[in-house]
């Protein structure tokens, strides 16, 4: 009996940037859904030929074998479907609508616009929302939480004053497998995040 040795599948390569909130969202989702990824940190501002090809809008980018895709929305879509772990997919139409509503707000106000007063207004709203519910769109984890997580990793804002966001952030870290142990600091998730600027 001869069996062909199954070719080991290459790991998914994820190109991320330290200042790019979507990069942290993609890393979080990969860790949450236990998808094996290799993260390569790139600097879109370094001035190399390679960096000229990538812009902040194209990151994170992903290569899985012959398939390549860029931009946060399609990358998260891909990472949310592949693998065997359950998808983050609200069943109820109202939760789904709220998820999209908050994603749109977080992306526009926290990720793109650089107006502190607008950011503070939204963070206050999200903090209130998290006082009532476990997660942003209700009592289940949605992609809106993953988007906010990305923002918290690059935020220079003082998030300490948002008590409920602080509690929620701890909860988010505890959702990543094997991170809520004593050796959490050595976990794969932290290794992936080690080059981020906010310690």
């Amino acid at each position, binding site marked *: 009996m001869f069996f062909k040795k199954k070719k080991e599948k290459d790991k998914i390569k994820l190109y991320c940037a330290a200042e790019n909130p979507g990069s942290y969202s993609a890393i979080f989702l990969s860790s949450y859904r236990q998808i094996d990824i290799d993260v390569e940190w790139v600097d879109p501002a370094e001035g190399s030929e390679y960096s000229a090809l990538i812009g902040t*809008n194209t990151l994170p980018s992903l290569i899985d074998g012959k*398939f390549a*895709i*860029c*931009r946060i*929305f*399609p*990358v998260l*879509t*891909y990472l949310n*479907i*592949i693998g065997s772990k359950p998808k983050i997919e609200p069943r*109820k*139409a*109202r939760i*789904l*609508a*709220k*998820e*999209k*509503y908050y*994603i*749109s*707000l977080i992306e526009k106000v926290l990720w793109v616009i650089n107006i502190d007063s607008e950011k503070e207004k939204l963070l206050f709203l999200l903090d209130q929302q998290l006082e009532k519910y476990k997660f942003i769109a209700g009592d289940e984890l949605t992609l809106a939480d993953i988007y906010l997580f990305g923002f918290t990793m690059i935020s220079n804002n003082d998030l300490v004053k948002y008590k409920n966001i602080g509690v929620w952030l701890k909860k988010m870290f505890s959702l990543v497998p094997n991170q809520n142990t004593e050796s959490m600091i050595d976990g794969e998730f932290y290794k992936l995040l080690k080059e981020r600027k906010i310690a």
Partner: protein
Amino acid sequence: MKELFDDIAISVDAYGADGDMKKTQYVLDLIGSVSNPETYKCILAASEQGMEMNCYALENLNDSQFDEMKGETLALRESDFIISGSEAIVAFIDARGLGYSLELKNAQLAAIQNYWVDIANVAFSDSVCKLIYGNVGKRKDKHTLTKDSLEKINLYLDALDKQLKNNKYIVCNKYTFADLHWTAYIHFILISDYEDLIDNKKNIQDWLQRIKSRKSQCGQEIVAYDNLPNKTDIENKKLSSVRIGDF
């Protein structure tokens, strides 16, 4: 916003008062602008999913009603639930609808779909809005802005034309969210007197013909595209409601 909907919408009690049994369990009310592609997306989604939706033009609201919108330009109500923003409304209608969801199950196809949705919503829409509405308060003059926007729009349309070379629809041979989003923007360009932008784009023209004749996703005898406002509707500030007669 609840008061506003109560004020302008048909009373729920009056719905179906003629005794007809309808499969639609929920009455959807939409407030949106007749000249906003985001509104068109919601109309397309409701038509595709066979959801009856009463539509009210933002342009016909009086000042106090307009203030009730609290800065939003698009809102949907279903019973006690109100949501704003086209992304949220389209997702809600798609999940509630009678037809199969437009969401793709295959990871690669779904990613490609959302890539095209993202390009439409973030990059293409920005250039389209600058072209049609102008860009008040910016340093560049209107002529420069128009030239810049036209160049960018042409670039995106070329890419779309290339993408449609081997596919019936944008992602594959199946109608997806990508088609819905691009239909809204391209229809907006066409009714804003920029038809010539797709003159040399044969694949886009063929795709548009398919969109204009395809039966809705829910399998009923309606063509979603027919529910979009035309030039006359824009002049008359008229937003047609989505009606499903074929249950």
